[in-house]
Protein backbone atom coordinates (compact mmCIF):
# COMPACT_ATOMS: atom_id res chain seq x y z
CA UNK A 1 0.00 0.00 0.00
CA UNK A 2 2.80 2.38 0.83
CA UNK A 3 4.93 1.85 -2.25
CA UNK A 4 4.52 4.78 -4.54
CA UNK A 5 5.94 5.75 -7.89
CA UNK A 6 6.47 9.28 -6.63
CA UNK A 7 10.17 9.91 -7.19
CA UNK A 8 12.67 12.54 -6.19
CA UNK A 9 12.47 13.94 -9.73
CA UNK A 10 8.77 14.60 -9.25
CA UNK A 11 9.53 16.33 -6.00
CA UNK A 12 12.06 18.55 -7.76
CA UNK A 13 9.48 19.35 -10.42
CA UNK A 14 7.03 20.41 -7.74
CA UNK A 15 9.64 22.51 -5.98
CA UNK A 16 10.35 24.25 -9.28
CA UNK A 17 6.62 24.96 -9.47
CA UNK A 18 6.73 26.32 -5.94
CA UNK A 19 9.59 28.60 -6.98
CA UNK A 20 7.42 29.98 -9.82
CA UNK A 21 4.66 30.59 -7.28
CA UNK A 22 7.07 32.47 -5.02
CA UNK A 23 8.50 34.47 -7.91
CA UNK A 24 5.04 35.48 -9.12
CA UNK A 25 4.05 36.49 -5.59
CA UNK A 26 7.16 38.61 -5.05
CA UNK A 27 7.01 40.39 -8.42
CA UNK A 28 3.30 41.13 -8.22
CA UNK A 29 3.64 42.29 -4.61
CA UNK A 30 6.45 44.69 -5.56
CA UNK A 31 4.47 46.15 -8.48
CA UNK A 32 1.26 46.27 -6.49
CA UNK A 33 2.77 47.76 -3.36
CA UNK A 34 4.58 50.55 -5.20
CA UNK A 35 1.50 51.45 -7.22
CA UNK A 36 -0.75 50.90 -4.22
CA UNK A 37 1.20 53.28 -2.00
CA UNK A 38 1.00 56.02 -4.63
CA UNK A 39 -2.70 55.44 -5.31
CA UNK A 40 -3.51 55.02 -1.63
CA UNK A 41 -1.78 58.26 -0.65
CA UNK A 42 -3.61 60.03 -3.47
CA UNK A 43 -6.90 58.54 -2.32
CA UNK A 44 -6.32 59.62 1.27
CA UNK A 45 -4.97 63.11 0.60
CA UNK A 46 -7.13 64.12 -2.37
CA UNK A 47 -10.32 62.16 -1.78
CA UNK A 48 -12.49 64.19 -4.14
CA UNK A 49 -10.41 64.28 -7.28
CA UNK A 50 -9.41 60.60 -7.15
CA UNK A 51 -12.91 59.14 -6.97
CA UNK A 52 -12.64 57.83 -10.59
CA UNK A 53 -9.48 55.98 -9.56
CA UNK A 54 -11.44 54.25 -6.84
CA UNK A 55 -14.06 53.13 -9.37
CA UNK A 56 -11.42 51.72 -11.68
CA UNK A 57 -9.65 49.84 -8.90
CA UNK A 58 -12.97 48.57 -7.60
CA UNK A 59 -13.44 46.70 -10.90
CA UNK A 60 -10.34 44.63 -10.19
CA UNK A 61 -11.82 43.55 -6.87
CA UNK A 62 -15.28 42.71 -8.20
CA UNK A 63 -14.29 40.53 -11.17
CA UNK A 64 -12.90 37.02 -10.62
CA UNK A 65 -9.15 36.82 -11.02
CA UNK A 66 -9.55 33.92 -13.44
CA UNK A 67 -11.58 36.09 -15.81
CA UNK A 68 -9.09 38.92 -15.47
CA UNK A 69 -6.31 36.56 -16.56
CA UNK A 70 -8.26 35.31 -19.58
CA UNK A 71 -9.38 38.81 -20.58
CA UNK A 72 -5.93 40.29 -20.34
CA UNK A 73 -4.42 37.35 -22.19
CA UNK A 74 -6.91 37.89 -25.02
CA UNK A 75 -6.32 41.63 -24.97
CA UNK A 76 -2.60 41.06 -25.29
CA UNK A 77 -3.11 38.98 -28.41
CA UNK A 78 -5.54 41.53 -29.84
CA UNK A 79 -3.09 44.36 -29.27
CA UNK A 80 -0.36 42.25 -30.88
CA UNK A 81 1.96 42.41 -27.89
CA UNK A 82 4.37 39.52 -27.81
CA UNK A 83 4.39 38.98 -24.07
CA UNK A 84 4.90 35.66 -22.36
CA UNK A 85 2.22 34.24 -20.09
CA UNK A 86 4.44 34.98 -17.12
CA UNK A 87 4.51 38.72 -17.90
CA UNK A 88 0.72 38.72 -18.35
CA UNK A 89 0.32 36.99 -14.99
CA UNK A 90 2.62 39.53 -13.31
CA UNK A 91 0.71 42.47 -14.79
CA UNK A 92 -2.72 41.15 -13.85
CA UNK A 93 -1.66 40.13 -10.36
CA UNK A 94 0.12 43.47 -9.98
CA UNK A 95 -3.08 45.36 -10.81
CA UNK A 96 -5.02 43.09 -8.48
CA UNK A 97 -2.61 43.78 -5.64
CA UNK A 98 -2.72 47.51 -6.44
CA UNK A 99 -6.48 47.51 -6.01
CA UNK A 100 -6.28 45.97 -2.54
CA UNK A 101 -3.12 47.75 -1.44
CA UNK A 102 -4.68 51.13 -2.25
CA UNK A 103 -7.45 50.50 0.26
CA UNK A 104 -4.98 49.29 2.89
CA UNK A 105 -2.70 52.31 2.48
CA UNK A 106 -5.65 54.67 2.40
CA UNK A 107 -7.07 53.39 5.67
CA UNK A 108 -3.58 53.51 7.17
CA UNK A 109 -3.07 57.14 6.23
CA UNK A 110 -6.56 58.09 7.38
CA UNK A 111 -5.90 56.46 10.74
CA UNK A 112 -3.30 59.12 11.58
CA UNK A 113 -5.22 61.72 13.61
CA UNK A 114 -5.58 65.09 11.89
CA UNK A 115 -4.60 66.89 15.10
CA UNK A 116 -1.21 65.16 14.98
CA UNK A 117 -0.59 66.41 11.47
CA UNK A 118 -1.66 69.93 12.44
CA UNK A 119 0.73 69.77 15.38
CA UNK A 120 3.62 68.74 13.15
CA UNK A 121 2.79 71.50 10.68
CA UNK A 122 2.63 74.09 13.43
CA UNK A 123 6.04 72.91 14.66
CA UNK A 124 7.37 74.10 11.32
CA UNK A 125 7.50 70.92 9.22
CA UNK A 126 6.66 71.37 5.57
CA UNK A 127 3.81 69.40 3.95
CA UNK A 128 6.15 66.76 2.55
CA UNK A 129 8.23 66.55 5.72
CA UNK A 130 5.05 65.97 7.68
CA UNK A 131 4.01 63.23 5.26
CA UNK A 132 7.39 61.52 5.27
CA UNK A 133 8.30 61.78 8.95
CA UNK A 134 4.98 61.77 10.78
CA UNK A 135 2.28 60.22 8.61
CA UNK A 136 4.26 57.48 6.85
CA UNK A 137 5.77 55.78 9.93
CA UNK A 138 2.44 55.75 11.75
CA UNK A 139 0.44 54.66 8.72
CA UNK A 140 2.90 51.84 8.02
CA UNK A 141 2.26 50.31 11.43
CA UNK A 142 -1.50 50.39 10.96
CA UNK A 143 -1.35 49.09 7.40
CA UNK A 144 1.24 46.35 7.95
CA UNK A 145 -1.04 43.52 9.21
CA UNK A 146 -3.38 44.15 6.30
CA UNK A 147 -0.45 44.06 3.93
CA UNK A 148 0.72 40.69 5.29
CA UNK A 149 -2.81 39.35 4.83
CA UNK A 150 -2.75 40.60 1.27
CA UNK A 151 0.59 38.89 0.69
CA UNK A 152 -0.86 35.63 1.99
CA UNK A 153 -3.97 35.84 -0.14
CA UNK A 154 -1.98 36.72 -3.27
CA UNK A 155 0.30 33.75 -2.67
CA UNK A 156 -2.79 31.55 -2.71
CA UNK A 157 -4.38 33.32 -5.66
CA UNK A 158 -1.33 32.64 -7.85
CA UNK A 159 -2.72 29.10 -8.14
CA UNK A 160 -5.16 30.47 -10.72
CA UNK A 161 -2.44 31.34 -13.25
CA UNK A 162 -2.43 27.70 -14.33
CA UNK A 163 -5.38 28.62 -16.53
CA UNK A 164 -3.20 30.70 -18.85
CA UNK A 165 -0.59 27.99 -19.05
CA UNK A 166 2.05 28.69 -16.43
CA UNK A 167 3.42 25.68 -14.60
CA UNK A 168 3.28 26.71 -10.96
CA UNK A 169 2.98 24.49 -7.90
CA UNK A 170 -0.60 23.30 -8.40
CA UNK A 171 -0.22 22.80 -12.15
CA UNK A 172 3.02 20.90 -11.58
CA UNK A 173 1.31 18.58 -9.13
CA UNK A 174 -1.54 18.06 -11.56
CA UNK A 175 0.92 17.09 -14.26
CA UNK A 176 2.44 14.51 -11.94
CA UNK A 177 -1.02 13.24 -10.99
CA UNK A 178 -1.90 12.55 -14.60
CA UNK A 179 1.30 10.56 -14.95
CA UNK A 180 1.47 8.48 -11.79
CA UNK A 181 -2.27 8.43 -10.92
CA UNK A 182 -1.91 9.02 -7.20
CA UNK A 183 -3.88 12.24 -6.71
CA UNK A 184 -4.23 12.12 -2.95
CA UNK A 185 -0.53 11.80 -2.16
CA UNK A 186 0.64 14.38 -4.68
CA UNK A 187 -2.05 16.91 -3.80
CA UNK A 188 -1.33 16.48 -0.10
CA UNK A 189 2.33 17.28 -0.75
CA UNK A 190 1.33 20.35 -2.75
CA UNK A 191 -1.00 21.43 0.04
CA UNK A 192 1.75 20.93 2.59
CA UNK A 193 4.11 23.15 0.58
CA UNK A 194 1.46 25.89 0.38
CA UNK A 195 0.74 25.50 4.08
CA UNK A 196 4.40 25.82 5.03
CA UNK A 197 4.87 28.89 2.82
CA UNK A 198 1.82 30.56 4.38
CA UNK A 199 2.96 29.69 7.86
CA UNK A 200 6.43 31.11 7.29
CA UNK A 201 5.04 34.39 5.93
CA UNK A 202 2.53 34.68 8.77
CA UNK A 203 5.20 33.99 11.43
CA UNK A 204 7.66 36.49 9.92
CA UNK A 205 4.90 39.10 9.71
CA UNK A 206 3.85 38.57 13.31
CA UNK A 207 7.45 38.80 14.50
CA UNK A 208 8.07 42.03 12.60
CA UNK A 209 4.85 43.46 14.00
CA UNK A 210 5.81 42.80 17.61
CA UNK A 211 9.28 44.18 17.02
CA UNK A 212 7.82 47.42 15.73
CA UNK A 213 5.49 47.67 18.68
CA UNK A 214 8.34 47.47 21.18
CA UNK A 215 9.37 51.03 20.46
CA UNK A 216 5.89 52.49 20.84
Amino acid at each position, binding site marked *: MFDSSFSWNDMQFMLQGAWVTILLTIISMIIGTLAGVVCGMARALLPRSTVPLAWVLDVFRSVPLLIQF*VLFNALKSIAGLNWSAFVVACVVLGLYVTAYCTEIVRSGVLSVPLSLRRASRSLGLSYWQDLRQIVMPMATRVAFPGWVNLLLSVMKDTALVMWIGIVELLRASQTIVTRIQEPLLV*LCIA*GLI*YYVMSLVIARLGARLETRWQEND
Partner: protein
Amino acid sequence: MFDYSFHWRAAFKALPDMLDGAIVTFETAALSMILGVIIALFLVFMRQGKNRLFRGFAATWISIARNTPSLFQVYILYFGLGSFGLHVSSWAALLAGITINNAGYLAENFRGGLKAVPDTQLRAARSLGMSAPQAYRLIVIPQLLRIVFYPLTNQMVWAVLMTSMGVIVGLNNDLTGVTQDYNVKTFRTFEFFAIAAVLYYLIAKLIVAVARLLSWRLFRY
Protein backbone atom coordinates in the same frame (compact mmCIF):
# COMPACT_ATOMS: atom_id res chain seq x y z
CA MET B 1 -0.58 46.20 -34.90
CA PHE B 2 -4.27 46.42 -34.11
CA ASP B 3 -5.99 44.36 -36.79
CA TYR B 4 -8.74 42.64 -34.86
CA SER B 5 -12.41 43.12 -35.57
CA PHE B 6 -14.68 42.73 -32.59
CA HIS B 7 -17.79 40.61 -33.07
CA TRP B 8 -20.06 41.67 -30.31
CA ARG B 9 -23.27 40.47 -31.95
CA ALA B 10 -22.40 36.79 -31.54
CA ALA B 11 -21.51 37.46 -27.93
CA PHE B 12 -24.75 39.27 -27.22
CA LYS B 13 -26.71 36.37 -28.69
CA ALA B 14 -25.25 34.22 -25.94
CA LEU B 15 -26.42 36.63 -23.26
CA PRO B 16 -29.56 34.68 -22.22
CA ASP B 17 -27.50 31.54 -21.65
CA MET B 18 -24.94 33.51 -19.72
CA LEU B 19 -27.64 35.03 -17.55
CA ASP B 20 -28.84 31.51 -16.75
CA GLY B 21 -25.24 30.73 -15.83
CA ALA B 22 -25.13 33.82 -13.64
CA ILE B 23 -28.15 32.54 -11.72
CA VAL B 24 -26.42 29.19 -11.16
CA THR B 25 -23.33 31.06 -9.98
CA PHE B 26 -25.34 33.14 -7.55
CA GLU B 27 -27.25 30.13 -6.23
CA THR B 28 -24.05 28.17 -5.69
CA ALA B 29 -22.49 31.08 -3.84
CA ALA B 30 -25.57 31.66 -1.71
CA LEU B 31 -25.85 27.97 -0.83
CA SER B 32 -22.18 27.80 0.11
CA MET B 33 -22.61 30.91 2.26
CA ILE B 34 -25.59 29.49 4.14
CA LEU B 35 -23.77 26.21 4.78
CA GLY B 36 -20.60 28.13 5.57
CA VAL B 37 -22.28 30.26 8.24
CA ILE B 38 -23.80 27.20 9.93
CA ILE B 39 -20.50 25.29 9.91
CA ALA B 40 -18.60 28.38 11.04
CA LEU B 41 -20.90 28.74 14.08
CA PHE B 42 -20.25 25.10 14.95
CA LEU B 43 -16.52 25.63 14.53
CA VAL B 44 -16.57 28.67 16.82
CA PHE B 45 -18.39 26.79 19.56
CA MET B 46 -16.17 23.73 19.11
CA ARG B 47 -13.12 25.94 19.46
CA GLN B 48 -14.39 27.48 22.67
CA GLY B 49 -15.55 24.18 24.10
CA LYS B 50 -13.72 21.96 26.57
CA ASN B 51 -13.39 18.86 24.42
CA ARG B 52 -9.83 18.71 23.12
CA LEU B 53 -10.75 16.56 20.13
CA PHE B 54 -13.32 19.09 18.92
CA ARG B 55 -10.96 21.96 19.59
CA GLY B 56 -8.23 20.33 17.54
CA PHE B 57 -10.67 19.53 14.74
CA ALA B 58 -11.89 23.14 14.53
CA ALA B 59 -8.37 24.56 14.66
CA THR B 60 -7.21 22.18 11.91
CA TRP B 61 -10.19 23.02 9.69
CA ILE B 62 -9.68 26.75 10.08
CA SER B 63 -5.94 26.68 9.48
CA ILE B 64 -6.21 24.44 6.41
CA ALA B 65 -9.03 26.56 4.95
CA ARG B 66 -7.08 29.76 5.49
CA ASN B 67 -3.58 28.61 4.54
CA THR B 68 -4.12 26.74 1.28
CA PRO B 69 -5.50 28.10 -2.01
CA SER B 70 -9.22 27.59 -2.51
CA LEU B 71 -8.46 26.05 -5.88
CA PHE B 72 -6.37 23.44 -4.08
CA GLN B 73 -9.32 22.69 -1.81
CA VAL B 74 -11.59 22.14 -4.80
CA TYR B 75 -8.91 20.01 -6.44
CA ILE B 76 -8.42 17.72 -3.51
CA LEU B 77 -12.17 17.18 -3.25
CA TYR B 78 -12.50 16.51 -6.96
CA PHE B 79 -9.40 14.40 -7.65
CA GLY B 80 -8.38 13.34 -4.17
CA LEU B 81 -11.71 11.77 -3.19
CA GLY B 82 -11.57 9.82 -6.41
CA SER B 83 -8.77 7.69 -5.01
CA PHE B 84 -11.15 6.47 -2.31
CA GLY B 85 -13.54 5.45 -5.10
CA LEU B 86 -15.76 8.42 -4.27
CA HIS B 87 -16.58 10.24 -7.49
CA VAL B 88 -18.20 13.59 -6.85
CA SER B 89 -19.59 15.80 -9.58
CA SER B 90 -17.66 18.97 -10.36
CA TRP B 91 -20.50 21.08 -8.98
CA ALA B 92 -20.50 19.19 -5.68
CA ALA B 93 -16.71 19.50 -5.44
CA LEU B 94 -16.91 23.22 -6.13
CA LEU B 95 -19.69 23.76 -3.59
CA ALA B 96 -17.90 21.73 -0.92
CA GLY B 97 -14.60 23.49 -1.60
CA ILE B 98 -16.08 26.96 -1.34
CA THR B 99 -18.06 25.97 1.74
CA ILE B 100 -14.93 24.71 3.49
CA ASN B 101 -13.18 27.95 2.60
CA ASN B 102 -16.10 30.14 3.69
CA ALA B 103 -16.50 28.28 6.97
CA GLY B 104 -12.80 28.74 7.80
CA TYR B 105 -12.78 32.46 7.14
CA LEU B 106 -16.19 33.13 8.73
CA ALA B 107 -15.22 31.21 11.86
CA GLU B 108 -12.37 33.65 12.41
CA ASN B 109 -14.72 36.58 11.83
CA PHE B 110 -17.27 35.24 14.28
CA ARG B 111 -14.60 34.62 16.88
CA GLY B 112 -13.44 38.22 16.57
CA GLY B 113 -17.05 39.41 16.73
CA LEU B 114 -17.79 37.41 19.87
CA LYS B 115 -14.67 38.82 21.50
CA ALA B 116 -15.82 42.34 20.69
CA VAL B 117 -19.10 41.89 22.59
CA PRO B 118 -18.10 42.53 26.21
CA ASP B 119 -18.66 39.74 28.74
CA THR B 120 -20.39 42.22 31.00
CA GLN B 121 -23.25 42.54 28.52
CA LEU B 122 -24.13 38.88 28.90
CA ARG B 123 -23.74 39.01 32.68
CA ALA B 124 -25.89 42.12 32.94
CA ALA B 125 -28.58 40.48 30.83
CA ARG B 126 -28.49 37.37 33.02
CA SER B 127 -28.67 39.40 36.21
CA LEU B 128 -31.71 41.22 34.86
CA GLY B 129 -33.44 37.86 34.85
CA MET B 130 -33.06 36.72 31.24
CA SER B 131 -32.44 33.06 30.55
CA ALA B 132 -29.24 32.13 28.69
CA PRO B 133 -30.96 31.63 25.31
CA GLN B 134 -32.84 34.89 25.78
CA ALA B 135 -29.66 36.74 26.62
CA TYR B 136 -27.95 35.36 23.52
CA ARG B 137 -30.92 36.07 21.27
CA LEU B 138 -31.73 39.55 22.51
CA ILE B 139 -28.37 40.92 23.63
CA VAL B 140 -25.38 39.09 22.18
CA ILE B 141 -26.57 38.16 18.66
CA PRO B 142 -27.79 41.65 17.68
CA GLN B 143 -24.46 43.16 18.69
CA LEU B 144 -22.52 40.34 17.04
CA LEU B 145 -24.46 40.71 13.79
CA ARG B 146 -23.59 44.37 13.61
CA ILE B 147 -19.87 43.58 13.86
CA VAL B 148 -19.78 40.64 11.47
CA PHE B 149 -22.21 42.07 8.92
CA TYR B 150 -19.59 43.79 6.81
CA PRO B 151 -17.18 40.80 6.71
CA LEU B 152 -20.18 38.61 5.90
CA THR B 153 -21.00 40.76 2.87
CA ASN B 154 -17.39 40.65 1.78
CA GLN B 155 -17.31 36.89 2.09
CA MET B 156 -20.46 36.62 -0.03
CA VAL B 157 -18.80 38.62 -2.80
CA TRP B 158 -15.75 36.39 -2.41
CA ALA B 159 -17.91 33.30 -2.70
CA VAL B 160 -19.35 34.56 -5.99
CA LEU B 161 -15.88 35.24 -7.32
CA MET B 162 -14.65 31.84 -6.15
CA THR B 163 -17.36 29.99 -8.09
CA SER B 164 -15.46 30.95 -11.24
CA MET B 165 -12.97 28.21 -10.35
CA GLY B 166 -15.56 25.57 -11.17
CA VAL B 167 -14.52 25.70 -14.81
CA ILE B 168 -11.08 24.33 -13.94
CA VAL B 169 -12.61 21.11 -12.62
CA GLY B 170 -14.98 20.92 -15.57
CA LEU B 171 -18.16 22.64 -14.44
CA ASN B 172 -20.03 23.94 -17.49
CA ASN B 173 -23.29 25.47 -16.31
CA ASP B 174 -22.15 28.38 -14.17
CA LEU B 175 -21.29 31.77 -15.63
CA THR B 176 -17.62 31.05 -16.33
CA GLY B 177 -18.43 27.55 -17.56
CA VAL B 178 -21.03 28.79 -20.05
CA THR B 179 -18.65 31.50 -21.21
CA GLN B 180 -15.87 28.98 -21.68
CA ASP B 181 -18.20 26.72 -23.67
CA TYR B 182 -18.98 29.55 -26.07
CA ASN B 183 -15.33 30.54 -26.16
CA VAL B 184 -14.31 27.05 -27.22
CA LYS B 185 -16.95 27.04 -29.98
CA THR B 186 -16.24 30.49 -31.41
CA PHE B 187 -12.78 31.59 -30.20
CA ARG B 188 -14.15 35.06 -29.49
CA THR B 189 -12.40 34.99 -26.14
CA PHE B 190 -12.29 38.69 -25.43
CA GLU B 191 -15.93 39.45 -26.24
CA PHE B 192 -17.38 36.59 -24.23
CA PHE B 193 -15.17 37.04 -21.22
CA ALA B 194 -15.72 40.80 -21.24
CA ILE B 195 -19.46 40.21 -20.95
CA ALA B 196 -18.85 37.65 -18.20
CA ALA B 197 -16.69 40.18 -16.35
CA VAL B 198 -19.47 42.78 -16.57
CA LEU B 199 -21.99 40.26 -15.25
CA TYR B 200 -19.72 39.33 -12.33
CA TYR B 201 -19.23 43.01 -11.57
CA LEU B 202 -23.00 43.56 -11.56
CA ILE B 203 -23.60 40.59 -9.27
CA ALA B 204 -20.95 41.86 -6.85
CA LYS B 205 -22.39 45.38 -6.86
CA LEU B 206 -25.90 44.00 -6.41
CA ILE B 207 -24.82 42.07 -3.32
CA VAL B 208 -23.14 45.14 -1.85
CA ALA B 209 -26.18 47.31 -2.58
CA VAL B 210 -28.62 44.82 -1.03
CA ALA B 211 -26.36 44.48 2.00
CA ARG B 212 -26.23 48.23 2.42
CA LEU B 213 -30.01 48.47 2.23
CA LEU B 214 -30.37 45.64 4.73
CA SER B 215 -27.92 47.19 7.15
CA TRP B 216 -29.74 50.51 6.88
CA ARG B 217 -32.99 48.73 7.75
CA LEU B 218 -31.54 46.45 10.45
CA PHE B 219 -29.19 48.77 12.28
CA ARG B 220 -31.19 51.95 12.26
CA TYR B 221 -31.40 52.34 16.03
